[in-house]
Protein backbone atom coordinates (compact mmCIF):
# COMPACT_ATOMS: atom_id res chain seq x y z
CA UNK A 1 0.00 0.00 0.00
CA UNK A 2 1.03 3.59 -0.57
CA UNK A 3 0.04 5.82 2.28
CA UNK A 4 0.90 9.07 4.01
CA UNK A 5 -0.67 7.96 7.31
CA UNK A 6 2.82 7.73 8.81
CA UNK A 7 3.81 11.25 7.79
CA UNK A 8 3.21 12.85 11.23
CA UNK A 9 5.47 10.48 13.13
CA UNK A 10 8.13 10.54 10.41
CA UNK A 11 8.11 14.34 10.45
CA UNK A 12 8.84 14.49 14.19
CA UNK A 13 11.95 12.35 13.67
CA UNK A 14 13.32 14.15 10.64
CA UNK A 15 17.09 14.46 10.86
CA UNK A 16 18.06 17.91 9.69
CA UNK A 17 21.32 18.18 7.75
CA UNK A 18 23.90 20.32 9.54
CA UNK A 19 23.94 22.97 6.85
CA UNK A 20 25.99 25.57 8.73
CA UNK A 21 28.66 23.09 9.81
CA UNK A 22 28.81 21.57 6.32
CA UNK A 23 29.20 25.02 4.80
CA UNK A 24 31.91 25.96 7.28
CA UNK A 25 33.81 22.70 6.60
CA UNK A 26 33.48 23.21 2.85
CA UNK A 27 34.65 26.81 3.11
CA UNK A 28 37.66 25.94 5.26
CA UNK A 29 38.88 22.90 3.33
CA UNK A 30 38.03 24.42 -0.06
CA UNK A 31 40.09 27.42 1.01
CA UNK A 32 42.88 25.07 2.06
CA UNK A 33 42.92 23.65 -1.49
CA UNK A 34 43.13 27.23 -2.79
CA UNK A 35 46.07 27.91 -0.47
CA UNK A 36 47.90 24.77 -1.63
CA UNK A 37 47.25 25.80 -5.24
CA UNK A 38 48.57 29.28 -4.53
CA UNK A 39 51.74 27.87 -2.95
CA UNK A 40 52.32 25.69 -6.01
CA UNK A 41 51.84 28.73 -8.26
CA UNK A 42 54.33 30.64 -6.11
CA UNK A 43 56.87 27.80 -6.36
CA UNK A 44 56.35 27.63 -10.14
CA UNK A 45 56.93 31.37 -10.53
CA UNK A 46 59.72 31.87 -8.03
CA UNK A 47 61.60 28.57 -7.97
CA UNK A 48 61.09 27.31 -11.54
CA UNK A 49 60.96 30.84 -13.00
CA UNK A 50 57.81 30.13 -15.10
CA UNK A 51 55.61 32.94 -16.35
CA UNK A 52 52.23 33.51 -14.70
CA UNK A 53 50.16 31.59 -17.29
CA UNK A 54 52.33 28.48 -17.23
CA UNK A 55 52.56 28.56 -13.43
CA UNK A 56 48.78 28.33 -13.15
CA UNK A 57 48.56 25.64 -15.83
CA UNK A 58 51.19 23.48 -14.10
CA UNK A 59 49.48 24.00 -10.74
CA UNK A 60 46.24 22.63 -12.24
CA UNK A 61 48.10 19.61 -13.59
CA UNK A 62 49.69 18.98 -10.18
CA UNK A 63 46.30 19.22 -8.42
CA UNK A 64 44.71 16.79 -10.91
CA UNK A 65 47.57 14.34 -10.49
CA UNK A 66 47.39 14.61 -6.70
CA UNK A 67 43.60 14.14 -6.71
CA UNK A 68 43.87 11.05 -8.88
CA UNK A 69 46.72 9.55 -6.88
CA UNK A 70 44.95 10.08 -3.56
CA UNK A 71 41.81 8.51 -5.07
CA UNK A 72 43.74 5.44 -6.16
CA UNK A 73 45.31 5.15 -2.72
CA UNK A 74 41.86 5.21 -1.12
CA UNK A 75 42.46 8.48 0.74
CA UNK A 76 40.42 11.04 -1.19
CA UNK A 77 36.98 9.63 -0.29
CA UNK A 78 37.86 9.62 3.41
CA UNK A 79 39.08 13.19 3.10
CA UNK A 80 35.87 14.08 1.23
CA UNK A 81 33.82 12.90 4.20
CA UNK A 82 35.55 15.57 6.32
CA UNK A 83 35.95 18.34 3.74
CA UNK A 84 32.43 18.00 2.20
CA UNK A 85 32.05 20.18 -0.91
CA UNK A 86 35.49 21.60 -0.13
CA UNK A 87 36.93 18.39 -1.60
CA UNK A 88 34.47 18.10 -4.50
CA UNK A 89 34.47 21.55 -6.06
CA UNK A 90 38.22 22.09 -6.65
CA UNK A 91 39.77 20.55 -9.76
CA UNK A 92 41.12 17.66 -7.66
CA UNK A 93 37.50 16.72 -6.94
CA UNK A 94 36.86 16.58 -10.66
CA UNK A 95 39.90 14.32 -10.99
CA UNK A 96 38.50 12.19 -8.15
CA UNK A 97 35.18 11.74 -9.96
CA UNK A 98 37.01 10.57 -13.12
CA UNK A 99 39.47 8.30 -11.34
CA UNK A 100 36.96 6.72 -8.97
CA UNK A 101 34.60 5.94 -11.87
CA UNK A 102 37.48 4.53 -13.89
CA UNK A 103 38.58 2.33 -10.97
CA UNK A 104 35.04 1.09 -10.53
CA UNK A 105 34.93 0.01 -14.17
CA UNK A 106 38.29 -1.74 -14.08
CA UNK A 107 36.81 -5.20 -13.59
CA UNK A 108 34.84 -4.89 -16.85
CA UNK A 109 37.92 -4.26 -18.98
CA UNK A 110 39.54 -1.25 -20.64
CA UNK A 111 36.86 -0.39 -23.21
CA UNK A 112 33.51 -1.34 -21.65
CA UNK A 113 34.76 -0.77 -18.12
CA UNK A 114 37.27 2.03 -17.68
CA UNK A 115 36.67 4.10 -20.84
CA UNK A 116 32.88 4.00 -20.86
CA UNK A 117 32.51 4.49 -17.10
CA UNK A 118 35.06 7.24 -16.66
CA UNK A 119 32.68 10.14 -17.36
CA UNK A 120 29.72 8.62 -15.52
CA UNK A 121 29.91 11.33 -12.84
CA UNK A 122 32.05 13.96 -14.56
CA UNK A 123 29.93 13.90 -17.72
CA UNK A 124 27.24 16.06 -16.14
CA UNK A 125 29.88 18.61 -15.06
CA UNK A 126 31.22 18.78 -18.62
CA UNK A 127 27.76 19.19 -20.14
CA UNK A 128 26.92 22.08 -17.83
CA UNK A 129 30.36 23.66 -18.23
CA UNK A 130 30.05 23.66 -22.03
CA UNK A 131 26.44 24.84 -21.96
CA UNK A 132 27.12 27.67 -19.51
CA UNK A 133 30.23 28.66 -21.51
CA UNK A 134 28.03 28.94 -24.59
CA UNK A 135 25.36 31.08 -22.91
CA UNK A 136 27.79 33.33 -21.03
CA UNK A 137 29.70 33.76 -24.30
CA UNK A 138 26.53 35.07 -25.94
CA UNK A 139 25.88 37.44 -23.02
CA UNK A 140 29.44 38.75 -23.19
CA UNK A 141 29.26 39.15 -26.97
CA UNK A 142 26.12 41.26 -26.58
CA UNK A 143 27.73 43.36 -23.81
CA UNK A 144 30.73 44.02 -26.09
CA UNK A 145 28.42 44.95 -28.98
CA UNK A 146 26.55 47.57 -26.92
CA UNK A 147 29.83 48.85 -25.56
CA UNK A 148 29.54 47.87 -21.87
CA UNK A 149 32.32 45.24 -21.75
CA UNK A 150 35.74 45.63 -23.41
CA UNK A 151 36.60 43.27 -26.28
CA UNK A 152 39.32 40.73 -25.46
CA UNK A 153 42.54 40.50 -27.41
CA UNK A 154 43.47 37.22 -29.12
CA UNK A 155 46.10 36.30 -26.55
CA UNK A 156 43.65 36.40 -23.63
CA UNK A 157 41.06 34.41 -25.59
CA UNK A 158 43.67 31.76 -26.38
CA UNK A 159 44.64 31.62 -22.69
CA UNK A 160 41.01 31.14 -21.60
CA UNK A 161 40.41 28.43 -24.21
CA UNK A 162 43.62 26.74 -23.10
CA UNK A 163 42.40 26.78 -19.50
CA UNK A 164 39.01 25.39 -20.49
CA UNK A 165 40.58 22.54 -22.47
CA UNK A 166 42.51 21.53 -19.38
Amino acid at each position, binding site marked *: *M*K*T*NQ*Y*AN*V*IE*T*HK*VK*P*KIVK*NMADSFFFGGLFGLVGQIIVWINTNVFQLDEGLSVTYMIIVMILAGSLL*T*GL*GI*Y*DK*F*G*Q*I*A*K*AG*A*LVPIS*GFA*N*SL*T*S*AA*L*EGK*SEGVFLGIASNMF*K*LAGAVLVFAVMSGFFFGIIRYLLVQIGIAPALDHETVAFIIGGCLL
Partner: protein
Amino acid sequence: MKEKGASFKLNHVYLESTATVVGAMEMNGPLSSYFDIRNPDPYFGKKSWEQAETAMSELAILKAMVNAGVTAEDVDFAFGGDLVNQLVPTHYAMREFDIPFIGTYSACATVVESLILASTFVDHDYATRALAFSSSHNNMAEKQFRTPVEYGAAKGATAQYTATGAGVGIVSQKPSAVKIESATIGIIVDAEQNNPSDMGTAMAPAAAHTISTHLKEMGLAPDHYDLILTGDLASVGSPILIDLLKQDGYDISGIHQDCGLLLYDDEQPTFAGGSGAGCCSIVMFGYIAEKLRRKELKNVLVVATGALLNATIVAQKESIPGIAHAIALSSAEVKGGEAE
Protein backbone atom coordinates in the same frame (compact mmCIF):
# COMPACT_ATOMS: atom_id res chain seq x y z
CA MET B 1 -3.64 -23.89 9.63
CA LYS B 2 -4.33 -20.23 9.46
CA GLU B 3 -7.70 -19.01 8.32
CA LYS B 4 -6.76 -15.65 6.96
CA GLY B 5 -3.89 -13.33 7.66
CA ALA B 6 -0.21 -13.05 7.14
CA SER B 7 1.00 -15.08 10.12
CA PHE B 8 1.31 -18.80 10.66
CA LYS B 9 2.79 -21.18 13.21
CA LEU B 10 5.54 -23.61 12.33
CA ASN B 11 5.31 -26.82 14.29
CA HIS B 12 8.50 -28.79 14.00
CA VAL B 13 11.26 -26.79 12.33
CA TYR B 14 14.66 -26.29 13.92
CA LEU B 15 17.80 -24.44 12.98
CA GLU B 16 20.19 -27.32 12.38
CA SER B 17 23.26 -25.23 11.71
CA THR B 18 24.36 -21.73 10.79
CA ALA B 19 27.40 -20.10 9.24
CA THR B 20 28.53 -16.53 8.74
CA VAL B 21 31.26 -14.93 6.66
CA VAL B 22 32.15 -11.28 7.27
CA GLY B 23 34.50 -8.57 6.05
CA ALA B 24 36.87 -6.14 7.73
CA MET B 25 34.42 -3.66 9.29
CA GLU B 26 32.28 -6.44 10.77
CA MET B 27 35.27 -8.31 12.19
CA ASN B 28 36.35 -5.10 13.91
CA GLY B 29 32.87 -4.58 15.34
CA PRO B 30 31.48 -5.71 18.70
CA LEU B 31 29.98 -8.99 17.37
CA SER B 32 33.22 -10.18 15.78
CA SER B 33 33.59 -13.30 17.93
CA TYR B 34 30.18 -14.63 16.83
CA PHE B 35 31.17 -14.96 13.19
CA ASP B 36 32.63 -18.14 11.69
CA ILE B 37 34.85 -16.77 8.93
CA ARG B 38 36.38 -13.30 9.05
CA ASN B 39 38.31 -11.95 6.10
CA PRO B 40 39.72 -8.41 6.01
CA ASP B 41 40.36 -8.62 2.24
CA PRO B 42 37.44 -6.80 0.53
CA TYR B 43 38.13 -8.78 -2.66
CA PHE B 44 38.11 -12.14 -0.86
CA GLY B 45 41.04 -13.04 -3.13
CA LYS B 46 38.99 -12.41 -6.30
CA LYS B 47 39.15 -9.77 -9.02
CA SER B 48 35.83 -7.92 -8.69
CA TRP B 49 33.23 -7.05 -6.05
CA GLU B 50 30.74 -9.37 -7.73
CA GLN B 51 33.16 -12.28 -7.48
CA ALA B 52 34.05 -11.34 -3.91
CA GLU B 53 30.43 -11.52 -2.80
CA THR B 54 29.98 -14.79 -4.70
CA ALA B 55 32.99 -16.21 -2.85
CA MET B 56 31.49 -15.10 0.47
CA SER B 57 28.17 -16.81 -0.17
CA GLU B 58 29.85 -19.96 -1.39
CA LEU B 59 32.08 -20.08 1.66
CA ALA B 60 29.15 -19.51 4.03
CA ILE B 61 27.07 -22.27 2.41
CA LEU B 62 29.98 -24.71 2.60
CA LYS B 63 30.64 -23.80 6.22
CA ALA B 64 26.97 -24.25 7.17
CA MET B 65 26.96 -27.71 5.60
CA VAL B 66 30.20 -28.60 7.39
CA ASN B 67 28.71 -27.35 10.69
CA ALA B 68 25.66 -29.56 10.14
CA GLY B 69 27.81 -32.47 9.03
CA VAL B 70 25.97 -32.81 5.73
CA THR B 71 26.81 -32.48 2.03
CA ALA B 72 24.89 -30.79 -0.80
CA GLU B 73 23.16 -34.12 -1.51
CA ASP B 74 21.52 -34.02 1.92
CA VAL B 75 20.00 -30.58 1.33
CA ASP B 76 16.68 -30.76 -0.51
CA PHE B 77 16.12 -27.11 -1.34
CA ALA B 78 17.97 -23.82 -1.09
CA PHE B 79 16.48 -20.33 -0.88
CA GLY B 80 18.65 -17.27 -1.05
CA GLY B 81 19.33 -13.88 -2.48
CA ASP B 82 21.33 -10.68 -2.33
CA LEU B 83 21.11 -7.07 -3.48
CA VAL B 84 22.88 -7.30 -6.81
CA ASN B 85 21.02 -7.14 -10.14
CA GLN B 86 19.85 -10.59 -11.24
CA LEU B 87 21.11 -11.97 -7.90
CA VAL B 88 24.55 -12.45 -9.43
CA PRO B 89 26.45 -13.49 -6.27
CA THR B 90 23.69 -15.88 -5.20
CA HIS B 91 23.31 -17.54 -8.59
CA TYR B 92 27.04 -17.89 -9.15
CA ALA B 93 27.51 -19.27 -5.66
CA MET B 94 24.67 -21.79 -6.20
CA ARG B 95 26.34 -22.84 -9.47
CA GLU B 96 28.77 -24.76 -7.26
CA PHE B 97 26.08 -26.77 -5.48
CA ASP B 98 23.58 -29.04 -7.20
CA ILE B 99 20.76 -28.15 -4.82
CA PRO B 100 17.28 -27.34 -6.18
CA PHE B 101 17.23 -23.59 -5.74
CA ILE B 102 14.84 -20.64 -5.62
CA GLY B 103 16.21 -17.09 -5.74
CA THR B 104 14.60 -14.63 -3.34
CA TYR B 105 14.59 -10.85 -3.22
CA SER B 106 13.15 -8.40 -0.78
CA ALA B 107 16.23 -6.19 -0.45
CA CYS B 108 17.56 -6.35 3.10
CA ALA B 109 14.62 -8.51 4.21
CA THR B 110 15.81 -11.31 1.92
CA VAL B 111 17.22 -13.50 4.68
CA VAL B 112 13.96 -13.79 6.60
CA GLU B 113 12.02 -14.29 3.36
CA SER B 114 14.39 -17.18 2.56
CA LEU B 115 14.18 -18.60 6.06
CA ILE B 116 10.37 -18.47 6.05
CA LEU B 117 10.29 -20.34 2.73
CA ALA B 118 12.83 -22.92 3.88
CA SER B 119 11.03 -23.45 7.20
CA THR B 120 7.65 -23.79 5.52
CA PHE B 121 8.99 -26.41 3.10
CA VAL B 122 10.42 -28.37 6.02
CA ASP B 123 7.35 -27.96 8.22
CA HIS B 124 5.09 -29.29 5.47
CA ASP B 125 7.41 -32.24 4.74
CA TYR B 126 8.32 -31.02 1.28
CA ALA B 127 11.91 -31.11 2.43
CA THR B 128 13.77 -32.84 5.22
CA ARG B 129 16.49 -30.23 5.14
CA ALA B 130 16.51 -26.79 3.52
CA LEU B 131 19.01 -23.98 3.35
CA ALA B 132 18.35 -20.24 3.60
CA PHE B 133 20.84 -17.48 3.05
CA SER B 134 21.53 -13.94 1.93
CA SER B 135 24.55 -11.77 1.42
CA SER B 136 25.64 -8.22 0.76
CA HIS B 137 28.97 -6.55 0.12
CA ASN B 138 29.60 -2.91 0.94
CA ASN B 139 31.59 -2.07 -2.17
CA MET B 140 29.24 -4.01 -4.42
CA ALA B 141 26.27 -2.08 -3.03
CA GLU B 142 28.10 1.23 -3.48
CA LYS B 143 28.80 0.32 -7.09
CA GLN B 144 25.22 -0.65 -7.83
CA PHE B 145 23.13 1.77 -5.79
CA ARG B 146 25.34 4.76 -5.14
CA THR B 147 28.57 6.22 -6.47
CA PRO B 148 31.96 4.60 -7.13
CA VAL B 149 33.63 3.35 -3.96
CA GLU B 150 36.45 5.92 -4.07
CA TYR B 151 34.22 8.89 -4.98
CA GLY B 152 34.76 11.75 -2.53
CA ALA B 153 31.20 13.00 -1.94
CA ALA B 154 30.40 13.22 1.76
CA LYS B 155 27.56 11.10 3.20
CA GLY B 156 24.89 12.56 5.45
CA ALA B 157 23.89 11.46 8.93
CA THR B 158 20.92 9.41 7.66
CA ALA B 159 23.03 7.32 5.26
CA GLN B 160 23.75 3.73 6.20
CA TYR B 161 26.71 1.44 5.70
CA THR B 162 25.97 -1.73 3.76
CA ALA B 163 27.40 -4.65 5.68
CA THR B 164 29.83 -7.04 4.06
CA GLY B 165 28.67 -10.45 5.07
CA ALA B 166 26.92 -13.66 4.13
CA GLY B 167 24.81 -15.68 6.54
CA VAL B 168 23.43 -19.18 6.06
CA GLY B 169 21.00 -21.20 8.09
CA ILE B 170 20.08 -24.84 7.53
CA VAL B 171 16.68 -25.90 8.84
CA SER B 172 15.35 -29.39 9.36
CA GLN B 173 12.92 -31.32 11.53
CA LYS B 174 15.81 -32.64 13.61
CA PRO B 175 15.41 -31.03 17.04
CA SER B 176 18.08 -28.55 17.96
CA ALA B 177 18.60 -25.74 20.44
CA VAL B 178 16.93 -23.17 18.18
CA LYS B 179 13.32 -23.72 17.21
CA ILE B 180 11.49 -21.73 14.57
CA GLU B 181 8.10 -20.89 16.03
CA SER B 182 6.12 -18.77 13.62
CA ALA B 183 6.36 -16.34 10.77
CA THR B 184 4.62 -13.27 9.40
CA ILE B 185 4.91 -12.25 5.79
CA GLY B 186 4.85 -8.49 5.30
CA ILE B 187 3.03 -6.32 2.85
CA ILE B 188 4.68 -3.56 0.88
CA VAL B 189 4.28 -0.29 2.72
CA ASP B 190 5.22 2.84 0.82
CA ALA B 191 5.27 5.81 3.21
CA GLU B 192 6.07 8.21 0.35
CA GLN B 193 9.73 8.64 1.22
CA ASN B 194 12.08 9.40 -1.65
CA ASN B 195 15.50 10.00 -0.12
CA PRO B 196 17.80 7.11 -1.12
CA SER B 197 20.22 8.20 1.64
CA ASP B 198 17.57 7.68 4.30
CA MET B 199 16.39 4.10 4.14
CA GLY B 200 15.64 3.81 7.85
CA THR B 201 12.71 6.19 7.50
CA ALA B 202 11.46 4.42 4.36
CA MET B 203 11.48 1.01 6.08
CA ALA B 204 10.19 1.83 9.57
CA PRO B 205 6.47 1.91 8.60
CA ALA B 206 6.75 -1.52 6.96
CA ALA B 207 8.42 -2.88 10.09
CA ALA B 208 5.72 -1.37 12.30
CA HIS B 209 3.01 -2.90 10.13
CA THR B 210 4.56 -6.37 10.18
CA ILE B 211 5.26 -6.38 13.95
CA SER B 212 1.78 -5.12 14.71
CA THR B 213 0.23 -7.73 12.39
CA HIS B 214 2.33 -10.47 13.95
CA LEU B 215 1.39 -9.62 17.53
CA LYS B 216 -2.27 -9.22 16.64
CA GLU B 217 -2.64 -12.40 14.61
CA MET B 218 -0.58 -14.57 16.96
CA GLY B 219 -2.43 -13.08 19.94
CA LEU B 220 0.78 -12.10 21.71
CA ALA B 221 1.85 -9.17 23.83
CA PRO B 222 5.22 -7.63 22.96
CA ASP B 223 6.72 -8.92 26.21
CA HIS B 224 6.24 -12.49 25.00
CA TYR B 225 9.56 -11.78 23.30
CA ASP B 226 12.68 -10.82 25.17
CA LEU B 227 13.98 -9.29 21.98
CA ILE B 228 12.34 -7.81 18.91
CA LEU B 229 15.17 -7.42 16.45
CA THR B 230 14.74 -5.31 13.34
CA GLY B 231 17.02 -5.72 10.36
CA ASP B 232 18.50 -2.38 9.48
CA LEU B 233 16.39 0.56 10.64
CA ALA B 234 19.50 1.93 12.34
CA SER B 235 19.47 5.10 14.42
CA VAL B 236 17.08 6.97 12.13
CA GLY B 237 14.39 4.32 11.61
CA SER B 238 14.36 2.76 15.09
CA PRO B 239 12.74 5.68 16.98
CA ILE B 240 10.16 6.01 14.19
CA LEU B 241 9.28 2.32 14.58
CA ILE B 242 8.88 2.63 18.34
CA ASP B 243 6.60 5.65 17.97
CA LEU B 244 4.51 4.04 15.22
CA LEU B 245 3.97 0.91 17.34
CA LYS B 246 2.95 3.05 20.31
CA GLN B 247 0.13 4.36 18.14
CA ASP B 248 -0.95 0.73 17.66
CA GLY B 249 -0.83 0.22 21.43
CA TYR B 250 2.42 -1.76 21.57
CA ASP B 251 5.37 -0.54 23.59
CA ILE B 252 8.52 -2.29 22.43
CA SER B 253 11.00 0.37 23.52
CA GLY B 254 12.52 -1.87 26.21
CA ILE B 255 12.93 -4.96 24.04
CA HIS B 256 13.80 -3.54 20.66
CA GLN B 257 17.23 -3.74 19.09
CA ASP B 258 18.43 -3.29 15.55
CA CYS B 259 20.98 -5.40 13.65
CA GLY B 260 22.39 -2.30 11.99
CA LEU B 261 23.16 -0.81 15.41
CA LEU B 262 24.43 -4.05 17.00
CA LEU B 263 26.88 -4.84 14.21
CA TYR B 264 29.14 -1.82 14.58
CA ASP B 265 30.32 0.35 17.42
CA ASP B 266 30.00 4.12 17.52
CA GLU B 267 33.63 4.66 16.55
CA GLN B 268 33.17 3.02 13.16
CA PRO B 269 32.19 5.31 10.26
CA THR B 270 28.80 3.78 9.53
CA PHE B 271 26.72 7.00 9.75
CA ALA B 272 23.24 5.95 10.96
CA GLY B 273 24.27 2.29 11.22
CA GLY B 274 24.61 -0.87 9.17
CA SER B 275 22.27 -2.12 6.47
CA GLY B 276 22.20 -4.58 3.61
CA ALA B 277 20.92 -8.07 2.97
CA GLY B 278 23.91 -9.46 4.84
CA CYS B 279 23.38 -7.30 7.92
CA CYS B 280 20.35 -9.08 9.37
CA SER B 281 21.68 -12.37 8.05
CA ILE B 282 24.97 -12.37 9.94
CA VAL B 283 23.49 -10.91 13.11
CA MET B 284 20.64 -13.45 13.16
CA PHE B 285 22.67 -16.52 12.16
CA GLY B 286 25.80 -15.46 14.03
CA TYR B 287 24.87 -13.55 17.15
CA ILE B 288 21.19 -14.32 17.82
CA ALA B 289 21.42 -18.05 17.05
CA GLU B 290 24.35 -18.36 19.46
CA LYS B 291 22.51 -16.39 22.17
CA LEU B 292 19.54 -18.75 21.79
CA ARG B 293 21.80 -21.79 21.96
CA ARG B 294 23.36 -20.45 25.16
CA LYS B 295 19.86 -19.77 26.52
CA GLU B 296 20.77 -16.13 27.05
CA LEU B 297 17.71 -15.33 24.98
CA LYS B 298 14.46 -17.26 25.09
CA ASN B 299 12.11 -15.83 22.45
CA VAL B 300 13.24 -13.56 19.67
CA LEU B 301 11.25 -12.00 16.87
CA VAL B 302 13.51 -11.17 13.94
CA VAL B 303 11.97 -8.58 11.64
CA ALA B 304 14.12 -8.09 8.57
CA THR B 305 13.42 -4.81 6.84
CA GLY B 306 13.93 -4.08 3.18
CA ALA B 307 13.91 -0.78 1.31
CA LEU B 308 12.96 -1.74 -2.23
CA LEU B 309 15.24 0.86 -3.73
CA ASN B 310 16.00 1.19 -7.40
CA ALA B 311 18.15 4.15 -8.44
CA THR B 312 16.43 4.51 -11.83
CA ILE B 313 12.86 4.66 -10.57
CA VAL B 314 13.82 7.03 -7.73
CA ALA B 315 15.35 9.36 -10.34
CA GLN B 316 11.94 9.17 -12.05
CA LYS B 317 10.51 10.73 -8.87
CA GLU B 318 8.93 7.56 -7.48
CA SER B 319 8.97 6.91 -3.74
CA ILE B 320 10.79 4.02 -2.03
CA PRO B 321 8.55 1.15 -0.88
CA GLY B 322 9.49 -0.86 2.18
CA ILE B 323 8.79 -4.43 3.24
CA ALA B 324 9.40 -6.38 6.43
CA HIS B 325 9.13 -10.09 7.13
CA ALA B 326 9.13 -11.53 10.64
CA ILE B 327 10.19 -14.89 11.98
CA ALA B 328 10.04 -15.97 15.61
CA LEU B 329 12.87 -18.04 17.04
CA SER B 330 13.00 -19.66 20.44
CA SER B 331 15.57 -21.53 22.42
CA ALA B 332 14.54 -25.15 22.84
CA GLU B 333 15.67 -27.78 25.34
CA VAL B 334 17.36 -30.70 23.65
CA LYS B 335 17.25 -33.90 25.71
CA GLY B 336 18.63 -37.02 24.13
CA GLY B 337 18.03 -35.67 20.67
CA GLU B 338 14.43 -34.77 21.42
CA ALA B 339 13.30 -31.22 21.85
CA GLU B 340 10.90 -30.37 24.61
